[in-house]
């Protein structure tokens, strides 16, 4: 069945790297060209599959970091014990190709008609789908208010720093802060959320993505603040990744 489309299934396609952008010392964005790409929604992801010479395969899911209508792009953080991310962050060059399937997902998705106000919370590379959502909001000239809470280890680890300057973003740097830092400098908790999240009375729609512990803290905090659980969309990527 390798490479063949199951009836109604997803097809593995060849993705060619058209640009490599170094975001931080550990994170890269790969802009891709995918033959037969049908477009995607803000918040969706893709599966990337690498096959070794001996036939061993490894698959990982990566959020799409580009907006609907733009070519697909993924932002990858290098994990020291990773099977896929070292190749994607160190070895791969423009013109190289790998297998990809998608777009995937209907839950962690924002469409302008879904409204807001949007409260986005990202830990580390969990900011990738938020870039897709924020760009989509901008590209569609949506009047939905959006605010991003973004937790990183250090200022150097902040992904999309220049682009995010144009958005309403509240940063927290959990490990180290530059001299004169006036932003938050701790892990997220309900007190912090009370200060940065839209009030529950506004009926906000929340998207939370990051390491599992980060997502659990934010989701629990938002419920405590009165957010409707059906209006909190979560995406967890496990125990790794900096926030």
């Amino acid at each position, binding site marked *: 069945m*390798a490479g063949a489309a199951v009836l109604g299934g997803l097809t593995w396609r060849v993705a060619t790297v058209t640009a490599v952008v170094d975001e931080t010392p550990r994170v890269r964005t790969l802009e891709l060209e995918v033959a037969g790409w049908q477009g995607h929604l803000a918040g969706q*992801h893709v599966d990337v599959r690498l096959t070794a010479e001996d036939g061993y395969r490894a698959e990982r899911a990566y959020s799409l970091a580009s907006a609907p209508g733009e070519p697909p792009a993924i932002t990858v953080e290098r994990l020291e014990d990773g099977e896929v991310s070292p190749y994607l962050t160190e070895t791969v060059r423009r013109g190289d190709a790998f297998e990809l399937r998608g777009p995937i997902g*209907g839950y962690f998705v924002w469409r302008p008609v879904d409204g807001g106000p949007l409260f986005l919370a990202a830990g580390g590379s969990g900011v990738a789908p938020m870039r897709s959502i924020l760009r989509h909001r901008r590209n569609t000239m949506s009047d939905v208010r959006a605010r991003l809470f973004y937790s990183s280890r250090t200022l150097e680890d902040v992904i999309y720093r220049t682009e995010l300057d144009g958005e309403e973003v509240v940063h927290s740097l959990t490990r180290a802060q530059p001299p004169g830092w006036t932003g938050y400098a701790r892990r997220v908790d309900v007190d912090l959320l009370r200060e940065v999240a839209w009030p529950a009375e506004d009926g906000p729609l929340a998207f939370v993505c990051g390491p599992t512990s980060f997502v659990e803290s934010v989701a629990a905090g938002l419920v405590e603040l009165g957010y409707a659980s059906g209006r909190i*969309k979560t995406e967890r990527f496990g125990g790794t990744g900096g926030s």
Partner: protein
Amino acid sequence: MEPVDGNAIGGMLYDVFGCEMTMAQAECGRCGARGPLAECEVYLGGPGIVVRCRGCHDIMMLLVEVREMICVDLGGLSELERPARR
């Protein structure tokens, strides 16, 4: 190992069921909690993938890939409602 969630297996579920499944409503056979598959706890990295209820943590679903065939055990679910196509 920290669990991820149902979003992470959206591609595999699509392959198994032939449609987008992260929005599918799953009902736990043990505690009756109901919610989208995207919100279930998912453990990757073992010989198979284990999907657990976010409420009671009981096993709802097992997926094992053997020689490019995916075997699925839905024994821990009392109901699985496919989402409407949109």
